């Protein structure tokens, strides 16, 4: 429409072209997503493909965007509007409103609603003393045993990330001789004798199997499990076992999105993003949990350390900074958590 007569609607050619282009891009993305979903249902593994969009994401001020999102979602709604907004959110992201602990009118903002608690009995905790339970509601992305030297977890087919980088390198004692069992036993023995030093939880990732010095004790392996939380999921983190939390590490990092597409296109997503790592000991040995933030859910609140603040404005180059640590174990016991206890929550922004 390059001309108009009377009341006819006028759109410049460039605007039409832009709308058509955006529509085509969106249609292409929907087509790709459908194709990926179909392939996943057939059991075909997705491969890593870095793209222009991923490079562009690296240039965006995602932490500032995240904090602005947090500010927006923290705006208080009038009481009459609250049920409409939260029902719309629940419809869009498949949340179950029946489980919310409070009436919808009592959540003052979307941020408040997002981190809601659940009604008593909504999440029964498996009482088998030999089981390890899920700390969150979510989707299982990966799980298995860390067998390879260096302790790598596959982000997606063709690309892996390092567990020492994810949790903090000081947790692990790298060993060069994979079959040096005696050395491992000595290390374990000496560390058991000196529980007040951090060394007891050091685990070899060069060969992540540790035999307890006592002959009756079984060989131990290192296992991992990666769980992704969608926006509509319950966003509180609970204790997976009875354990003693001995240390907290806060990595101030980027805030890339963590959705399925991002895992296929952004390298080192999990080791570059802002995260809080808790380390400790359970009945079988070492236990660590990393809560990783994303653009929309950028901050992590720890109930065992309410003063911790994450996703703060910072001027330095974030990913080069060492993590900030706090040891909870001055007397060698740390903070005792029971299976199912609330540990932390992901907050918007």
């Amino acid at each position, binding site marked *: 429409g390059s001309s108009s007569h009377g009341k006819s609607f006028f759109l410049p050619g460039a605007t039409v072209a832009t709308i058509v282009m955006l529509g085509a891009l969106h249609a292409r993305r929907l087509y790709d997503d459908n194709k990926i979903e179909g392939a996943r249902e057939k059991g075909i593994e997705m491969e890593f493909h870095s793209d222009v969009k991923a490079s562009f994401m690296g240039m965006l001020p995602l932490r500032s965007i995240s904090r602005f999102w947090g500010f927006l979602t923290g705006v208080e709604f009038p009481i009459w509007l609250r049920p409409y907004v939260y029902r719309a959110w629940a419809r869009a992201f498949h949340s179950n409103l029946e489980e919310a602990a409070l009436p919808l009118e009592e959540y003052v903002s979307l941020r408040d609603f997002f981190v809601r608690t659940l009604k008593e009995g909504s999440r029964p905790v498996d009482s088998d003393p*030999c089981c*390890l339970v*899920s700390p969150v509601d979510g*989707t299982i992305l990966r799980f298995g045993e860390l067998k390879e030297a260096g302790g790598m977890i596959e982000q997606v087919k063709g690309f892996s990330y390092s567990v020492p980088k994810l949790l903090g390198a000081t947790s692990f004692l790298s060993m060069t001789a994979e079959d040096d069992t005696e050395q491992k036993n000595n290390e374990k023995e000496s560390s058991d004798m000196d529980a007040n030093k951090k060394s007891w939880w050091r685990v070899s990732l060069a060969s992540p199997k540790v035999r307890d010095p006592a002959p009756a004790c079984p060989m131990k392996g290192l296992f991992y499990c990666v769980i992704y939380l969608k926006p509509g999921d319950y966003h509180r983190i609970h204790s997976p076992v009875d354990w003693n939390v001995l240390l907290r590490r806060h990595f101030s990092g980027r805030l890339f999105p963590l959705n399925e597409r991002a895992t296929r296109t952004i390298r080192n997503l*999990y080791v570059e993003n802002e995260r809080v790592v808790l380390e400790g000991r*359970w009945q079988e040995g070492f236990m660590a949990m990393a809560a990783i933030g994303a653009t929309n859910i950028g901050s992590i609140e720890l109930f065992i350390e309410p003063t911790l603040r994450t996703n703060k404005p910072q001027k330095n180059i974030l990913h080069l900074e060492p993590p900030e640590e706090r040891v909870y174990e001055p007397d060698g016991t740390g903070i005792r958590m029971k299976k199912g206890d609330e540990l932390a929550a992901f907050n918007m922004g």
Partner: protein
Amino acid sequence: STVVLVFQAPISSPSDFRFCIKKGERIRMGEALGR
């Protein structure tokens, strides 16, 4: 957001650790990941 668990567990029978989950499966807080 994502949570990653890393833990030690027995790998020799009879007390070896086994996951009881599947990749892509939905899980809720409190349900068993492994025994």
